């Protein structure tokens, strides 16, 4: 290995060590379970909104009758409310 190559390898090694150790040199606040729970609920909320929109589109394109749509929409919106309430509860903590 030439000197230039050796110097290059050393520089890369130094940069890698610096990069990997940087988080260890900075104190981080513990987020904990609440953050994970909130993120999961937010994902569930987005999924539920998507379901509500899908049901509406299904109704408008004739795949669901009025009665079926109303029942399904009520159910989905109730499920969405539960999720929103859970989000509110966790956010307050």
């Amino acid at each position, binding site marked *: 290995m030439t000197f230039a190559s050796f110097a290059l390898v050393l520089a890369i090694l130094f940069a890698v060590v610096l990069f990997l150790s940087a988080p260890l040199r900075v104190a981080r606040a513990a987020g904990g379970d609440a953050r994970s729970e909130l993120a999961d609920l937010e994902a569930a909320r987005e999924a539920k909104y998507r379901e509500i929109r899908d049901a509406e589109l299904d109704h408008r394109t004739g795949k669901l009758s009025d*009665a*079926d749509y109303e*029942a*399904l929409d009520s159910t989905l919106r109730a499920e969405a409310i539960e999720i929103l309430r859970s989000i509110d509860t966790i956010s307050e903590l």
Partner: protein
Amino acid sequence: MWDNRKRMDPSRKRAIRLTVALAAALLLATALIYVSFSAGRDEVTASQLLREARPGHSYILAGTVLVGSVRHAGDALLFRIRDPRLPLSVPVRYTGIIPDPFAGGRAVMVTVHQQSPNPTFVGEQNSLTTKCPSKYQAKAA
């Protein structure tokens, strides 16, 4: 949507669906096993072929093309396939598509049968396949 008709017990419905699914899977598996063993042909090496070949039966001969054995005779391709372990080879007369990578020293598979009493094995039309080599030999300087 949430009607009040008398409905089958959900666990019974599940049991029926599971039974149907398992029956279909069993049918598929049986058909597969049957087709595999009935339509399959023995893959043999050169030494196995010489030992076991019977006229009228076809075999999938796998091995390496003997370097220097490749010749053309009209529309037929003549070559020898050597055994991976023993110092022997079998002659093959083949007609049909010749794969682009085909050459001496390459691993090939061809479906053959023996036309008794001729010792040469006849390759089935378009049954020759060649394994792609991982490297190309260096050109002469």
